[in-house]
């Protein structure tokens, strides 16, 4: 236990500039930007143009810098893992799926968030988008109720995703946030820690699910927080 406690205190370090209030403020900006970007995405748009538009929106809101790149992924590109280049020139269809993943820096503080949207009525794609969010909350509730470790949370997430009919991409398996850049404290994944991540703006939980055979997936990401921070969530 001592080792775990030491590890936890080491990996949850923050710098002098860290401010929970500012971190929550950036969370709000991040969620707002995701929805604003999504609202401007239209069928017929080329993915590269959507990324440009997303960068413009973030820059207009004082979030020129990102600790990671801006991802707006259309259709088959929604299966791409974090950091992977999209196939170029993908155009969003009228009955399609797209995801957004942004990691903006506002002044000195990092945000990170993601969500998935559909353009039509395809029930499988709609379910995929809904399930990414649902899985996020199922795993978050396990953390809240059982104080499970990061590793246990993602072990659980893999099983739950499969139960829903999806494959979980563990390349995206949660991580730290802090004053910019968090990588000086801990650049690794939440799924690699054997302690219970502390709630608050220290960690993000993320779920990237993919169809087991078809080329689409969905993503949802937000801070690891209790129910009180998710007024729209209903268990």
């Amino acid at each position, binding site marked *: 236990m001592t080792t775990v406690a030491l590890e936890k205190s080491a990996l949850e370090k923050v710098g002098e500039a860290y401010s929970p209030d500012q971190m929550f403020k950036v969370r709000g900006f991040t969620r707002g930007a995701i929805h604003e970007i999504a609202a401007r995405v239209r069928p017929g748009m080329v993915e590269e143009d959507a990324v440009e538009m997303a960068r413009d929106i973030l820059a207009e809101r004082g979030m020129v810098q990102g600790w990671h790149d801006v991802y707006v992924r259309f259709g088959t590109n929604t299966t791409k893992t974090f950091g992977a280049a999209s196939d170029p020139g993908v155009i969003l269809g009228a009955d399609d799926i797209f995801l957004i993943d942004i*990691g903006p820096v506002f002044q000195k503080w990092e945000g990170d968030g993601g969500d998935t949207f559909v353009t039509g009525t395809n029930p499988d794609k709609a379910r995929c988008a809904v399930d990414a969010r649902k899985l996020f909350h199922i795993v978050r509730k396990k953390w809240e109720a059982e104080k499970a470790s990061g590793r246990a949370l993602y072990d659980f997430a893999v099983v739950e995703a499969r139960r829903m009919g999806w494959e979980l991409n563990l390349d995206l398996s949660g991580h730290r946030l802090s004053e910019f850049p968090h990588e000086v404290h801990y650049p*690794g994944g939440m*799924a690699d820690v054997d302690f219970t991540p502390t709630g608050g703006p220290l960690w993000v939980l993320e779920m990237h699910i993919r169809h087991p055979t078809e080329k689409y997936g969905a993503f949802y990401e937000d801070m690891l927080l209790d129910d009180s921070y998710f007024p729209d969530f209903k268990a």
Partner: protein
Amino acid sequence: MLMERFDRPCDHATSFALSALSLQCPGPDQAETGEPGAVPRSDATNGSASTKRLEVTLVALRRASKRTMVLRLRFVDGEVFKYRPGQFIGLVAPDGRQRFFSIANADPVHNELELHVNRTPGGAFTGMLFDKAQIGDRFWMEGPFGDFTIPPEASSRTILVAGGTGFAPIKACLEQMVAQRLTGMETSRTIHLYWGARSREDLYDVAGLDALSKRLPGLRFIPVLDQGHPDCSARTGFVHRAIIEDFDDLSEYDIYACGAPAMIEALSRDCAAERGFDPSRLIADIFTAGPACENVPPPATSAPVALLLDQASAIEGVEGEALLFALKRAGVALPAVCGGKGACGTCRIHIAPQWRSRLAEPAKQEARLLKFTGAGEGDRLSCRILLTADLSGLELQACTENNGDRQ
């Protein structure tokens, strides 16, 4: 005096001297296909009481072959790390996930671990180690993991099988045998080591093995190459077929094998079916490839591009790569938090006036980031400058302040 009794001596074959291999084989093979993998798979990767997460610094980096890199990692803050030869560690990659590598030395001499890294085709992490890692880079590592080991008191009915960088844990175990001076007491004991590799060049540590064999006179080394060459006397074909050719009866043998799943499965299956081998006597460390990543292609060309840093240091980039990566290799401290994607603005450099007009104008996002981070005239983001032949001679200065470089 040789004490071992073969049911069928390996007369036609090939436990031949290491130096002979060195002399008789041709130069590097140019095949580009990858090795089975560089990632030991084990059920024993869950942390245990003895598992530690430690920070390490890259202190040595040697390209042992076209596809293999030998790294040495030193513990930061003089941490003491205990492990058994044969075990492996996880290195935390920039994507946050661990990639697993066997420890290739028996004792952490000078508090350092040796790793043998095979370049996984399309592998983001091994690609980064090959193309971008530099002395002084820091990593988080976790371990030790795994139960694989070769007991120093192993009998003469012991066969060791390595596939590619599966040699690493076997080397650690052989070093342990040397350290325990068992050979001094039992010089007659013979241990067969079959090392399978794609080509002569992929037997990347024959010199090290030669040195070990001088202190382990019973060590018989049988290289088995995928690709034969008329001038090379090494065996060719599957490594397990070589064992089957050399032994009539394997029922009393223990086999220790490290390598790809297909190699180990075929070894167990065919040796059991054809030579009476008891599969429960197979101790294996199975390697699998790490997750692939599509965004780290090798440079399109290897043509060098000369660069002059701070009016003093001549460094070399490669045509087709971003300037950032050439600078990182040369040891320039640039945070590049976003990994060179043009998102964070923390890889700023200053271009000498006579070169500015020869660079393409910054695109919108670069211009925005330069303005936002307070860049001066002539400053650029090094991740946005793609090296081309006509930039040979480019003069630049490192910026002392890059937002994000606070620690």
